[in-house]
């Protein structure tokens, strides 16, 4: 086992446990904090996959901004005991069905992945930093890039309008 493998197993374990924490916590604040841990674990996986920039974007956008947004929203809508904010659905069949579908899906996907012959590339390339990404984003994908920027702007406007509500005149 190389160092790389150990790091992957540790990161994947932490991430999956944290993801389970997100789903299974009864306190939604704990869920949100586990979510931060999941994001950080995924960022670690990105670093391991030689995608440093994407990992840092993940940390900055997800762990630094989105999770804070979620926690703020939680604090705005919380009005019961903290320990009962994140319960499962009341009806057991729903939970059972959800669990069944999820396990089936994960197992099916895993099986499909394991038995697929992937067209692996023989070339090994290290972390290329931002130059390649910049070339892609401002070259062939410049339209998508601009559309994404506009999407963000529209989303910000929409979020502010929705959250602020219509004032009574």
């Amino acid at each position, binding site marked *: 086992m190389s160092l790389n493998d150990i790091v992957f197993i540790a990161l994947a374990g932490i991430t999956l446990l944290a993801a389970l924490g997100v789903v299974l916590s009864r306190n939604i604040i704990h869920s949100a904090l586990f979510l931060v841990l999941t994001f950080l674990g995924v960022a670690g996986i990105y670093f391991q996959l030689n995608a440093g920039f994407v990992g840092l974007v993940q940390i900055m*956008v997800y762990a630094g901004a989105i999770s804070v947004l979620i926690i703020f929203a939680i604090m705005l809508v919380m009005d019961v005991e903290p320990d009962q904010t994140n319960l499962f659905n009341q009806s057991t069949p729903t939970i059972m069905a959800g669990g069944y579908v999820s396990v089936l899906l994960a197992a099916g996907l895993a099986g499909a992945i394991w038995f697929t012959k992937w067209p692996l590339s023989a070339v090994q390339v290290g972390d290329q930093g931002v130059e390649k990404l910049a070339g892609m984003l401002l070259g062939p994908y410049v339209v998508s890039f601009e559309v994404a920027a506009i999407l963000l702007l529209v989303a910000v406007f929409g979020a502010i309008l929705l959250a602020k509500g219509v004032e009574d005149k």
Partner: protein
Amino acid sequence: MIGLAHYLIFASLLFGIGMFGVLSKRNAIAVLMSVELMLNAVNINFVAIEKFVTPGTGLGHTIALFVIVVAAAEVAVGLALIISIYRHKKSVNLNDFNLLKW
């Protein structure tokens, strides 16, 4: 030896956990968080395939960045919607949002 398949299986497990959350949680914000888990799982796929299948093209990283952007927009609007609904119904329980007309 860890290879592409391990990364993808890890991603599919994460996706499954997220899906379970989406299907079985009562709190709307918890469902949103589970959706984020699923989006992250998908992103891992892009980045892993970039490394093992198409190294050096930057394609997977680019798409991963777009996914992150869309996820950020989605969370912002989704949370605003939840807050807006909460203001009317005083609840974030998804079982209470069963009306077809406002």
